[in-house]
């Protein structure tokens, strides 16, 4: 993987994944129609209906096999090695290759092929994995299919497609769910696979120099709530009202705060109170009063329609409200006794911990202290050796002690590529490393990462 992308003359390869019906063929046809003048070869594992004359379409059976390099998770795609090899032997070269996988394909072997096969590496670069998500059916797929979760986990771009078929609330819920699984991918919303081509092509998803170009969504701690708002309230009776939404209950926590409302202050308050936000909160029925003490409660919003809960404010002051979901998902409103809606004086969206027990998550690590190169190498090699099967993607920019340049890493399962990048220069050296994987042990990763500091 070259560090200087502009000098990279290799042919970019884009992998399109997504379940049957997610819109892969529609997107592919769109790309082929709109990419005038670019010669595109398509390798299809799923026989779709492509009606574009100028593109070369090659049908191939997916052939996954293990490499005998002592690494049990190192599987590659034999069909890609063969076909990409044959395509490279043409004077009339292609500008772009697109691989459309079957709905059930594991993107791991596809990506690994570009890491381990020297011939492929020499002539092609994996530009990115684009996963199409059918907004209507994917929530169920994510519940019951490892393949669907892997396709989300591996993606550089997640296209939330068919949004015309779901409500805004459903779309937001799906978005936060996939975001919790893959914090690094670019999220693109679409209907009929209408996306700008520069969002899916030439994205540099595996380009070392562009690792973490997009800031992961979670390089702040994860909280059990997605939103917090600070209100200035007079003494009196208020009403917290919500509509039914994607979940039957909504966890909330209300606290009196001594300081003036601000977003910064809310973040501090979140740190103080997040332990009170409990998973097995007591469910309370509409009409009940909310307390300013004790653990969070779960508001029952399972019935259709609006549900109101009472808030008795004893004296004028600042009050912080933390909610498990974003207010817009349940049309949450705080109103006075007269029904006037109140806007918070400050609010903050918190990165939520995953709520769906999706075993696939992202873990981000950050350190302002330089890392010890030797310690880091020892830790990462052991981690990849032991947990490589469950680590789908690894991306990081590291500040190594004694090095003036950024050190960047990109990995797929046990395979990792690293290289020296541009100097830090004026920039404050900060190491950031993101893992996307299955059953990640955040505490253990954090401990290992801490032990690498110089």
């Amino acid at each position, binding site marked *: 993987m070259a560090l200087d992308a502009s000098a990279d003359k290799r042919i970019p390869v884009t992998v399109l994944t997504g379940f049957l019906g997610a819109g892969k063929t529609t997107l592919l046809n769109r790309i082929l129609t709109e990419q005038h003048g670019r010669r595109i070869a398509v390798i299809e594992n799923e026989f779709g209906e492509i009606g574009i004359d100028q593109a*070369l379409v*090659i*049908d191939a*059976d997916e*052939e996954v*096999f*293990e*490499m*005998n*390099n002592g690494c049990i998770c190192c599987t*590659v795609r*034999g*069909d890609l*090695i*063969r076909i990409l090899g*044959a395509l490279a*032997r*043409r*004077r*009339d070269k292609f500008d772009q290759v697109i691989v459309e996988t079957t709905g059930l394909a594991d993107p791991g072997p596809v990506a690994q092929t570009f890491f381990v*096969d*020297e*011939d492929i590496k020499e002539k092609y670069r994996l530009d990115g994995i684009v996963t199409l998500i059918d907004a209507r059916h994917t929530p169920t797929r994510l519940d019951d299919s490892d393949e669907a979760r892997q396709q989300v986990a591996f993606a550089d771009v997640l296209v939330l497609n068919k949004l015309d078929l779901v409500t805004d609330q459903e779309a937001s819920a799906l978005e936060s769910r996939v975001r919790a699984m893959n914090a690094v991918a670019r999220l693109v919303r679409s209907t009929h696979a209408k996306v700008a081509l520069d969002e899916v092509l030439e994205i540099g998803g595996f380009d070392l120099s562009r690792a973490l170009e997009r800031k992961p969504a979670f390089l702040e701690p994860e909280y059990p709530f997605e939103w917090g708002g600070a209100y200035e309230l007079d003494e009196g009776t208020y009403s917290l009202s919500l509509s039914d939404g994607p979940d039957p209950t909504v966890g909330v926590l209300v606290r009196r705060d001594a300081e003036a409302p601000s977003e910064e202050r809310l973040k501090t308050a979140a740190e103080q109170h997040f332990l009170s936000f409990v998973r097995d909160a007591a469910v309370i029925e509409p009409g009940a009063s909310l307390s300013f003490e004790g653990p969070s409660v779960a508001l029952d919003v399972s019935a259709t329609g609006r549900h109101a809960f009472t808030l008795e404010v004893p004296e004028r002051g600042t009050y912080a409200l933390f909610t498990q979901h974003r207010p817009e998902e349940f049309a949450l409103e705080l109103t006075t006794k007269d029904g006037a809606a109140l806007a918070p004086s400050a609010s903050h969206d918190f990165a939520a911990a995953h709520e769906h027990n999706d075993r696939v998550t992202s873990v981000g690590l950050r350190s302002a202290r330089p890392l010890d190169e030797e310690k880091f190498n020892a830790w990462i090699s052991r981690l990849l050796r032991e947990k490589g099967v469950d680590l789908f993607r690894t991306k990081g920019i590291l500040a190594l002690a004694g090095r003036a340049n950024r050190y960047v890493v990109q990995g797929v399962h046990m395979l990792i590529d690293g290289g020296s990048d541009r100097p830090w220069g004026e920039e404050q050296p900060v190491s950031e490393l993101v893992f996307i994987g299955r059953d990640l042990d955040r505490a253990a990763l954090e401990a290992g990462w801490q032990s690498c500091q110089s």
Partner: protein
Amino acid sequence: MAVVSELNTAASKFERPPRWKFDAGDYVTAIAADPRDELVAVATSAGTVHVLRASDGALLWTRKLFTMAAHGVDWHPDGSTILVCGQNRFASVLGRSDGATNTPKLELDGGGPWVEHARYAPHGRSIAIAAGKVVRFFHHDGAPLLETPPQASTIAAIEWRPDGNELASACYGGVHFWTPSRGISARQFLWKGSLLSLAWSPDTRYLAASSQDCSVHFWRTATGRDSQMTGYPFKPLSLSWDAKSSLLATSGDKTALLWDFAGKGPEGTAPIELDAHRALVTKLAFHRSHTSQAILATVSEDASLLFWEPRRAQRPVAFGFIDGIGSALAWMRSPSVIVGDDSGQVARFDFDPQR
């Protein structure tokens, strides 16, 4: 080119200028020399087959058979026909003197999108073609003989045993053997890996295979006992035995490695290292002469051709320049090689150590 320039300064008598050159127009995928030593067939990535006169490289005829690449060309052992395959569902049999306007004498249906391999049996009575996961056998007149069940993966290589009575096919998981006259053979050599190319020793005692994981695997065919040579930096796709079945030459590095099968076999021995190319050796082939000293030709990504007499010296005995990365190599019966490269150039070099 460090070594070649050293040779240059030492004495230009080591250099062999090409006897002729021909521009095939696109990446040369395969070359086959006519058993009568009169013609040369060249296949390209543009899907064309060119037939040249071996003596002066004059183009006799050209056929564009495929919209994409032609993969292979093979002469019938009597030199009467050429078997061609490529990115098309049919393999074609063309007459020796077919002009561009004639239709193929035979079209053999591979049953899949591409025919990757097509080979005449060395005795000339049957043809094997591989498309996708299936090998199909035909009588040389085109009558279907046998179709194998689909294999574990796409067939990566087929190679007839030198007597022509059995065919070995390689794919992920090992080598399978087929006897078209007697139906499906149960014999197989299993190996958990993706095999890419095959080479029988001329005495049929050994079968060697290159593997995706950058190793060379070989079996003693009588017992099935196998061994493996690992540590190649690249896939050792090109394998060649000398006529006496005593040396197996392997690509996969800038040094050509030769394993010595004389005596007990190569296990526990160090290979002969032929180190003079300055980039990866892409194709190599021994001249199949029983009478003279074993002669090996190697081409490389460094755009050169080197001749070796490995039993005599570990330095090249002659060299020639080509225009690009060597992509195809074939010996004629006379000690001359036809070399093709990725720029589409084809050239004939005569090996003449006495010059």
